[in-house]
């Protein structure tokens, strides 16, 4: 099945810093989403981005489907950005399930 790898596994930032999280996937996809899992365990949908670029406030994401990767940019990070960031993909076949990556644990320090 499709493999989803995220990097870096852990990241520590000072408040105000910028960061880039990467998601690589091993096969063609027709759905890619970025989620933020907050300290309470909730999965918050950030972007639905199977291709192209989207921006939402301090966050933006770019997916280059032909090269099988996606990037999540966080600018001017805040302590509330802390948590785990997951990307998840649905492959291009008959299956309808999302396959999650292993996540990036982000800690933003004041």
């Amino acid at each position, binding site marked *: 099945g499709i493999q989803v790898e995220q990097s870096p596994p852990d990241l520590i930032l000072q408040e105000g810093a910028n960061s880039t999280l990467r998601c690589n996937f091993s096969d063609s996809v027709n759905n890619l989403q970025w989620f933020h899992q907050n300290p309470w365990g909730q*999965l918050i949908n950030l972007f639905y981005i199977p291709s192209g670029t989207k921006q939402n406030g301090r966050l933006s994401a770019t997916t280059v489907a032909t090269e099988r990767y996606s990037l999540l940019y966080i600018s001017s990070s805040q302590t509330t950005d802390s948590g785990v960031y*997951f990307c998840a993909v649905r492959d291009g076949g008959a299956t309808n399930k999302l396959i999650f990556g292993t996540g990036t644990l982000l800690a933003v320090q004041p």
Partner: protein
Amino acid sequence: EPEVTQTPSHQVTQMGQEVILRCVPISNHLYFYWYRQILGQKVEFLVSFYNNEISEKSEIFDDQFSVERPDGSNFTLKIRSTKLEDSAMYFCASSRHLTQGPNYGYTFGSGTRLTVV
């Protein structure tokens, strides 16, 4: 924005007991899912449900698990005889069908944290 609602948010149960986790998917979504996340690990697919039947299930989803859509709004996951290793966060999700339009991302509920003691 429409939400997927899960209840309860936390549940503690004795090993061997049956539990039912409940979900109300987004009303115009046609696909429903259960996912599981053991503490500190990634989110794993359990089962998908479409047109009143299971469309796909993982190897985790063995005979002790079952899903049901008992009415037009609820979607449930039953674990018949819980084991210690069933302790996890369980997420319900829903999505539109391809025929409903191009923007068919998945919406996840807030999860039920199940602790088996």
